[in-house]
């Protein structure tokens, strides 16, 4: 299984991921229609893309009163079935990441569906803040950075 890995340190807050998400899913450009949201703190240059992490034990599935939240077996994405969703927003409240968003016109919740296995946001992100990689490689980048720090320290001894 693959997952979207987020490295906030690299994000420049350009919102291209929001635009490509809303354009490909909703045929219109707006951050309110996007399943990924970039939160910003510009005074310290911190930008954090928030997207559904498709938890192993998704609380949104447990809490959904109509059973609309379910996992798609092909991609492993946890999505909302629009026909069953009643818009009660339980998944919004229970999500530890705050990832689900409320569609302003259909009044249903929506989360990342991994674009059927080819997430466009990871393709459009040119700074490498978002990438679609195997789950076991998600922490690889952190390990590599840590390894380099360690290496430098050893060299300078």
């Amino acid at each position: 299984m693959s997952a979207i890995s987020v490295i906030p340190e690299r994000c420049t807050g350009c919102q291209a991921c929001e635009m490509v998400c809303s354009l490909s899913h909703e045929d219109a450009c707006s951050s309110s229609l996007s399943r990924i949201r970039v939160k910003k703190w510009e005074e310290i240059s911190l930008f954090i893309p928030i997207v559904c992490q498709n938890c192993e034990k998704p609380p949104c599935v447990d809490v959904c009163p109509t059973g609309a939240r379910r996992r798609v077996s092909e991609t492993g994405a946890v999505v909302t079935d629009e026909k069953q969703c009643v818009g009660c927003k339980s998944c919004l409240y229970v999500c530890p990441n705050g990832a689900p968003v409320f569609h302003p016109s259909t009044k249903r919740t929506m989360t990342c569906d991994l674009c059927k296995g080819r997430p466009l946001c990871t393709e459009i992100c040119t700074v490498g803040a978002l990438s679609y990689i195997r789950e076991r490689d998600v922490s690889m980048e952190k390990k590599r950075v840590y390894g380099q720090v360690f290496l430098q320290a050893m060299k300078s001894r």
Partner: protein
Amino acid sequence: MIKGWTGKRLRIDLSLQKAWLEDISQEVLRQWFGGRGLNASFFSTHFQSPVSPSSPENPVAFAVGPLTGTLAPCSGWTSIASFSPLSTPPIYGFTWMPGYFGASLKGVGVDQCVLQGKADRPIYLWIDDGEVRFEEAGHLWGKETTETTITLQEEKEDRNIEVLCIGPAGERQIPFANVIHRLSWTGDYLGLGYLFGIKQLKAIAIRGKKPITLHDPKQFLNLCLNLEDRIQKDRKVQKLKQGGKLPFLSREGETMIKEGTGGLRAGLAKQWSAFLKTCVSSREGCFTCPVNCGRNIQHQESYFRGIHLEKAWHLGPQVGVYNGEWTLKLHHLCQSQGLDPFLTSSLLAKIMKGSEYAPLSEEDLRQTEHIEDPGEKAFIILQRIINGGRKEFHLPARPASENKHLDALADIISFCPIVVKHLTQRTVSNMIDLIYAATGYFLSKEDLRDMVRNILRVESRLQNMGLDANDHSPLPLPGESQTSEILRREERNNESTAQRTTS
């Protein structure tokens, strides 16, 4: 139904505290397109002669293009126009500002926003998805730009809103004051800070999330992805991406050193840029930009958000300051006080050389005479100018553009002129395809060229009316040799466009 554009103009009267929407017809949009074109059209229809920049009726117009706020790469720019206080007699001035303001404006559901009038007390505008509110800004008056931005965002309990504000320099109506957006971007060479200060408008806080509908969304998505890919592969853009504007900057610096302008010293300039490089902490980019040429600076535990290297150059070697730390301090002062770095630089350079004394009082001169470090001297002089309250400055006009056709072309579509300039592969046909997919309006290259010429003509007439308002004689058309390089290059290998048009 209008696609790509929104077909609305937001008119705001600060005196009456009223805001209303006006329709912009499809014909007008197709004739003037957007950005700079829409602004030129507004001014030419509403003004027969220039008005005083300090008068309430002097409008400040913001406009965006049909691709702003969409996925189109590098389309985050905003065009701004007004009668500028920087010259006497006042003339029509225009500028452009990178960042996110344009995208938010489009998200509010308007193509153009025109501010007129004058508030009777300090206010700020809160534009929330089409609802405009005039709110008290007494508590913000006197605050620096960073604090203003953060305070407004905290007040609205949404850190994702965009803020455009002036600093104390704008409040004191210093002619070269500027607006600051996202603590980083500015609209230069227009005296915007002064205009906001005169109108007693401290800030514009904006949240725009309305969907922008497109003529052919699927095609648009594909074109954007293709273009993004091509931009990524372009060698010049890769250079811009990796080094920010620094490689271009040092080249500019080298030519200046060779030409001997400004008495630059090569070795020191190199040291200066090496120091700045060590302080770069992260990148910043405009809305949907794949290049991210801006750099953030972290120095001594404090962030100098968004340093634009050409601005740093103007506040460094250009004014004789070869100490990187003082450059950063000067840059930070400009940013927090809301000053135009280019105009500040030209003023400081003259003062440092000793050819200009007017902005300083005799007391100021006595106090700064003995300071030996040029960086410290420039910093203290600038502080004294801000607090001095003098209004007479001799400020230069914007340096002539290398290619005004190309700049105008970029500006009417609200594209990034920097990327357009450094790009060889992004041709006019890419833009035409994108515009077609967004708006459903197919432009030929000739249409585009005529449009650019027409806009330049109207602008030139608007600017000349300061000299003689009755002169309506036709202005000379730009010669064929002046036609933009990109248009000519496109003409040489335009097979793809021709094929597509026939099919």
